[in-house]
């Protein structure tokens, strides 16, 4: 069944090579359980997790209650006041159409983050179900599901997402479908690997011996035990999604204008870079980096907590 490590033969998290199918399109899951030799106090108090949570919470709070204080309409144009510099009415200045950058920043961030987080749910569920079916039943179920995964992951991520948007047209619905169609693969691979180990465990044999039905074993005993790895991966998946949403919008393939969105703002900023007004690029850009940074720390912190002891 497994035919050698292939390119995925990188030393896995626990030293043994990760299981791969066929090897041809095999991918190593980044060693999620590898922890850097960080100083003890960082690990003991899980400072990484809390730093990440605090940064993320601050950002979410800002986007959630910010618009209550910044009452400026993000889409109100004021062409006489285009590229206005920072003032009391417009703390971040105005863009090429005289719209308030701060207000667009706050409203745009809401859109991007909500899309990025919501777009994790379907791939997570789909990947978990398909991955556990493949791992638990093996044989042709495994072959069909994992070959499909191989084919989907043969396409570069951005190529497939952009082509799917080409097929379905711009807009939020397309982004959700495109991300779901591509991202389930990673979850399926992770969960399948977990299930391959789990199904040999004694408590699963005990379930079978006591006559539980297969769906019940899967739903109550197998899948819950794979969730932690999926959740850890979901943190970096959200980061990936933010990148996708912002990038698609940057190229005019994502959130449809005039809805404010960080990618579209950065596109405006790049087009009018000559005006010397860099706020349009820098504010959303650094916000994306900050949110992703926080999620990366949270992912690390969760790894420390949820690391299975085997």
């Amino acid at each position, binding site marked *: 069944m497994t*035919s*050698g*490590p*292939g*390119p995925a*033969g*990188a*030393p896995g998290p626990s030293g043994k090579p990760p299981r791969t199918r*066929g*090897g*041809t*399109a095999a*991918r*190593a899951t*980044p*060693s999620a359980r*590898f922890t*850097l*030799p*960080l*100083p003890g106090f960082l690990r003991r108090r899980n400072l990484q997790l809390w730093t990440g949570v605090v940064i993320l919470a601050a950002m979410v709070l800002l986007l959630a209650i910010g618009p209550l204080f910044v009452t400026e309409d993000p889409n109100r144009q004021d062409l006489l006041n285009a590229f206005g510099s920072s003032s009391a009415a417009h703390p971040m200045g105005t863009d090429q159409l005289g719209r308030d950058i701060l207000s667009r920043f706050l409203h745009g961030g809401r859109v991007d983050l909500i899309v990025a987080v919501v777009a994790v749910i379907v791939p997570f569920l789909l990947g978990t179900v398909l991955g556990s079916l493949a791992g638990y039943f093996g044989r042709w179920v495994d072959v069909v599901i994992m*070959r*499909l995964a*191989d*084919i989907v*992951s*043969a*396409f*570069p*991520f*951005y*190529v*497939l997402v*952009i*082509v799917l*948007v*080409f*097929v379905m*047209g711009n807009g939020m619905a397309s982004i959700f479908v495109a991300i779901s169609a591509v991202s389930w693969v990673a979850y399926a691979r992770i969960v399948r690997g977990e299930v391959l180990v789990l199904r040999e465990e004694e408590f699963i044999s005990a379930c079978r011996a006591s006559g539980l039905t297969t769906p019940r074993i899967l739903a109550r005993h197998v899948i819950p035990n794979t969730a932690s790895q999926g959740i850890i991966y979901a943190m*970096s998946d959200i*980061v990936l999604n*933010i*990148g996708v949403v*912002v990038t698609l919008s*940057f*190229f*005019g393939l994502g959130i449809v204008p005039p809805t404010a969105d960080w990618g579209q703002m*950065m596109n405006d900023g790049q087009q009018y*870079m000559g005006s010397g007004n*860099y706020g349009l*690029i820098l504010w959303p*850009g650094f916000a*994306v*980096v*900050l949110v*992703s*940074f926080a*999620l*990366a720390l949270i992912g*690390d912190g969760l790894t420390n907590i949820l690391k299975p002891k085997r």
Partner: protein
Amino acid sequence: MGKYILRRVLLMIPIVLGVATLSFILMKLAPGDPAAAYLGDKATPETVARLHRAWGLDQPMIIQYFQFLGGLVVGDFGRSFLFQTTVLELLKLRMPATLMLMLVSLVFAVIISVPLSLWVAATKSSASAIVSRVFTATVQGMPAFFVGTLLILVLGVNTGLFPVGGYGSSLGEHLYSLVLPGIAVALTICPVLIRSLTAALSDSMSAEYTNFAASKGLSRSKIVRNYAFRNAGITGISILGIQVGHLVGGALVVENVFAIPGVGSLLMEAVLARDYNVVQALTVIFGVLVVAVYLLTDIVYSIVDPRVRLGA
């Protein structure tokens, strides 16, 4: 050895076929009519129907599918209405810039990742771990187009050190104009590369042969260089191979930011102009390219580490 390669190639065939089939299905699902798009707004239904017959679009779907597969085998991807030439000609024109960009990015990725991973694994100090983690966590969340735009702002527009776009006309100019895009693409794969390399280096640093080397009295830096790094290098090769998809994705995005005439910017132009044949051809080619690189990685891996092909 031959047997191993043959097995790998055979395993690759169904995936390539799947890639082609998925691309075909996606294009058939896309709304609009390629023939109508090709002829423009003023086309009469009769001319559209004539073009349908000429392109075989009036045939049953299954026939069209096999015609499409047959075309792929001989390199016939149809014509681009946007550029009024064959897709194959376009590919010949645009592919070199993309391959060059990927190559430059690989070099930058290695230049950035290897020293950082070596530093972390060799010193095992908190400082190096924190620096490396902050770097990877920051870079991981930076969309490639944002890195590109930042580089243009800092090193292009404001200092004039590097060109802010274009590709030049000689090899020297190509390389010079690919410095900033190369860094931008490299940073998209650096986080994974650094993490894996550091993990692999730490693994081999605690292996028995390194303990033995240490007990012989070799210096730490020598152990890292001669023992740990050689073993971890194998991991590096495979990770680079696996990352090719991200490299292509990064190139696609960055080419558009820097106006580099490669296949990435071609795909975006084709998508925005709804140039079906070009989008379809590029989808297949990107997919096959990735699968081919996986195969190559497998083969290189089996040469460097014979344990792989001897079954394990």
